[in-house]
């Protein structure tokens, strides 16, 4: 498998900062950023999440010309709602934990490569969701020199049944 590349781009940083509702000019204004300690635009702490765009196998992105699990003429374009959504009353995959370790800030112009490694897997009995299966994934982002820039550890959980909560 080819290791995917994540080019860090100023426009993507601006769009990402808008989406998380952060007006800090360090993410969008090069002149402001030049006068700061870091000396230029950097990416917000959770920015590597956008590497999904560059992961050729990322399952949660519609594929051109292929059926998609979201609604169109029908509530889902895939029989049974697809592999991750789960059928009514069925289980769902959810994000349980996310951990970042930062070795240096990300800057426009960086081109990172990232490697995803399967971590531990464990099970736990849930109160409402039935059996919970936790799956850990470690992603290492490195720069052009092979130096570690960000390490991500993410824990996903698959539930046996849908866990719903009342709206506040």
């Amino acid at each position: 498998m080819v290791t995917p590349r994540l080019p860090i781009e100023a426009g993507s940083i601006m769009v990402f900062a808008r989406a998380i509702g952060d007006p800090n000019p360090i993410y969008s204004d090069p002149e402001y950023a030049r006068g700061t300690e870091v000396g230029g635009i950097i990416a917000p702490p959770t920015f590597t999440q956008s590497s999904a765009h560059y992961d050729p196998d990322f399952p949660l992105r519609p594929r051109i010309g292929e059926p998609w699990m979201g609604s169109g003429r029908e509530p889902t374009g895939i029989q049974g709602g697809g592999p991750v959504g789960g059928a009514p009353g069925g289980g769902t995959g959810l994000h349980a934990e996310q951990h970042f370790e930062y070795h240096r800030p990300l800057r426009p112009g960086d081109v990172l490569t990232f490697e995803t490694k399967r971590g531990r897997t464990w099970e736990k009995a849930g109160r409402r969701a039935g059996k919970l299966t936790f799956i850990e994934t470690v992603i290492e982002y490195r720069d052009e020199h092979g130096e570690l820039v960000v390490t991500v550890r993410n824990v996903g959980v698959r539930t046996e049944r849908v866990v719903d909560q009342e709206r506040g």
Partner: protein
Amino acid sequence: MALRASELQVGDRREAVLVEDLTRTQIVQYAGASGDYHPLHTDEVYAREVGGYAGVFAHGMLTMGITGRLLTDWVGDGRLTRFGVRFVRQVWPGDRLTAHATVEAIREEEGVHYVDLAVTTTNQDGDDVVSGYATARVDP
């Protein structure tokens, strides 16, 4: 401005309301920015009829991203060395999100000063939606 270890005390806190009324549009914005287009977050029909949920809900990583603003506003840009959370509760459109950070330790390692923070974000009912930690490099 970076924080100074000498001016920090265990128990120092910051909190800020970071989202007054979370919109479905912001969730869609995050889907586009992050590349995570799971219809549970963006497609009300799918979320109800296929997912079995009351409606769409926010990506956990949107809540974590929103929470990060409190940290970088406090410790300064490019100063975080660690940031981690557990996703405790779902975040729904209409939620008001308040992030909280509390100094747990101020320490020195190989001549570098760090502050360890406990981090939570709560909704309008005062319930945690994410709960975690962060560490930042600070000046002496």
